[in-house]
């Protein structure tokens, strides 16, 4: 109910904590800004040797890349630190969260907001703005709205993947890089048109895990292009529904995971 204000306070406490380490924070902020820039450099390099990738030209792919990068950066800042749950489970820090009258997930997310990654959001947004300006988009009110909705839905979907995969730590304490394979792997997957991937891989990642709805389908909607894979037109606009479904599934997995923790202990 009024819990929101408490989580806001927990976040603010975290922000003030960073003030204790100003210099290292500034360095982290700068180096994090480089990450999306290096990725975009890779794409530009690819287009030096080929005029199109999976049937899309450089400007179109950059729109996709911008949407994917912005979605991922938003999710990474908001819930990326959930991957630390392994440490919380192993060291028993989760016990300290369980004896407070707040949601465990809420506390974990507010306990360590990776603000040093905020620079990635800024850079990803800049890339998206430039790409959209250069791409042949006929703007309608629906498409303007989609420019806001798509990164939001994409962030929710990535956030769901983060939570669901991190929850594996409750069962499998040394799950190591398993979660990263789906989170960072998913980010790289969504940066390119799904037409470049083989069928098995595509069905699993694009549709099974929903990654096609982060950038590929919203980009088709922005460009007004039909799906080269022959998918129905409504798919282009269904990102919010897919994101909501993913969030629901992730919250169920999380609940089962916490219950599992309480029946395992540390």
């Amino acid at each position, binding site marked *: 109910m009024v819990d929101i204000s408490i989580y806001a306070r927990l976040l603010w*406490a975290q922000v003030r904590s960073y003030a204790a380490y100003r210099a290292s924070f500034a360095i982290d902020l700068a180096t994090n800004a480089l990450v999306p820039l290096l990725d975009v450099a890779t794409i530009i390099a690819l287009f030096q040797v080929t005029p199109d990738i999976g049937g899309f030209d450089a400007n179109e792919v950059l729109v996709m890349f911008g949407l994917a990068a912005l979605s991922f950066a938003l999710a990474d800042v908001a819930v990326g630190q959930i991957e630390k749950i392994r440490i919380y489970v192993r060291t028993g820090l989760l016990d300290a969260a369980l004896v407070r009258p707040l949601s465990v997930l809420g506390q974990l997310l507010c306990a360590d907001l990776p603000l040093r990654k905020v620079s990635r959001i800024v850079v990803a947004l800049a890339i998206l703005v430039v790409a959209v300006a250069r791409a042949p988009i006929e703007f309608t009110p629906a498409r303007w709205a989609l420019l806001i909705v798509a990164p939001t839905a994409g962030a929710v979907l990535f956030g769901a993947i983060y939570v669901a995969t991190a929850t594996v730590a409750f069962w499998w304490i040394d799950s190591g890089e398993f979660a990263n394979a789906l989170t960072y792997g998913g980010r790289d997957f969504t940066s390119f048109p799904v037409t470049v991937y083989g069928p098995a891989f595509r069905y699993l990642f694009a549709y099974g895990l929903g990654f096609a709805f982060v950038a590929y389908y919203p980009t088709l909607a922005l460009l007004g292009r039909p799906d080269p894979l022959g998918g129905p037109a409504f798919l282009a606009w269904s990102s919010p529904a897919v994101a909501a479904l993913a969030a629901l599934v992730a919250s169920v997995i999380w609940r089962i995971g916490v219950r599992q923790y309480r029946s395992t202990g540390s």
Partner: protein
Amino acid sequence: MTSAVIEARGLRRDFTIRKRIGRFRRQRSVVTAVDGIDLRIEAGELVGYLGPNGAGKSTTIKMLTGVLRPTAGYLRVCGLEPVTQRRQLARRIGVVFGQRSQLWWDLPLRDSFELARHIWRVPPADHAARLARFTRELDLSFLDTPVRQLSLGQRMRAELTIALLHGPQVVFLDEPTIGLDVLSKQAVRAFLTELRDRGDTTVVLTTHDLADIERLCRRLVVIDHGRVVHDGTLESLHARYGSRRAVVATLAEPLPEPVRLPGVDLVQISPDGRVLTFSLDGSRTPAGHLIATLAALGSLRDISIAEPTIEDVVARLYADGTDAGTA
């Protein structure tokens, strides 16, 4: 009828351990950490919860605080079922886990208390009154220091404060004096004595520090191998486990003949035979009787009687428990 703050009947907790046997195969085995505990703690009691490492102390505390789900048995804390009503329960209990801080590491201590006020939704007036009281009683002169700069003793006093700021009905203290210097231990004990004597907070204290037990706990619950092996006062523990006093007698010259009394053993004798140490079971021979006997046998120069220490009792108790467990 239930005025009990904590009520457990047949509380049990199993853990499944998977052990590798061979390259891929794993064997599952079930370990029972808590094996049918009955416990009833009334409002305002201060109970010492003791046991050797691995006896099931922390598993019990985790079940009582809603961190761990019991495998079987009945459990109510403040009338609530801990795991299913975790958040309601968290409002009514306070917890100090010796090694796991509730404080915000990089912020001034004051800020942690302010956050706690919001987390537990404490009315500002109550918060101010309690904070003033704890600041006085625990001498919190370091409210503006970041937590990471506090000494261990200061940090423990801060942990106690944050656990009590919302006025919990029950507070669980897991080794609150571990690693503290003498002065800090005294400060913590004095504070807990005060808290106990006010009588409005139930305290469950786990500790290995025997001085804590002697000064603070009127009731001791001792567990071993997941079972309660003693529940009662310190005195009844001594009586039950035949605690012995040590009687040291200094004589003008060696005894002409040995002392033969029931429950009296000569445990040490000086090379010149003039200083004798006896171990005495007071229930069989009163100390006065031993002294009178010694005085009759020879000329008694000096006598001293040492009370049984809880170290002896607990060591004996743990040893018994181990024997029972392996038998």
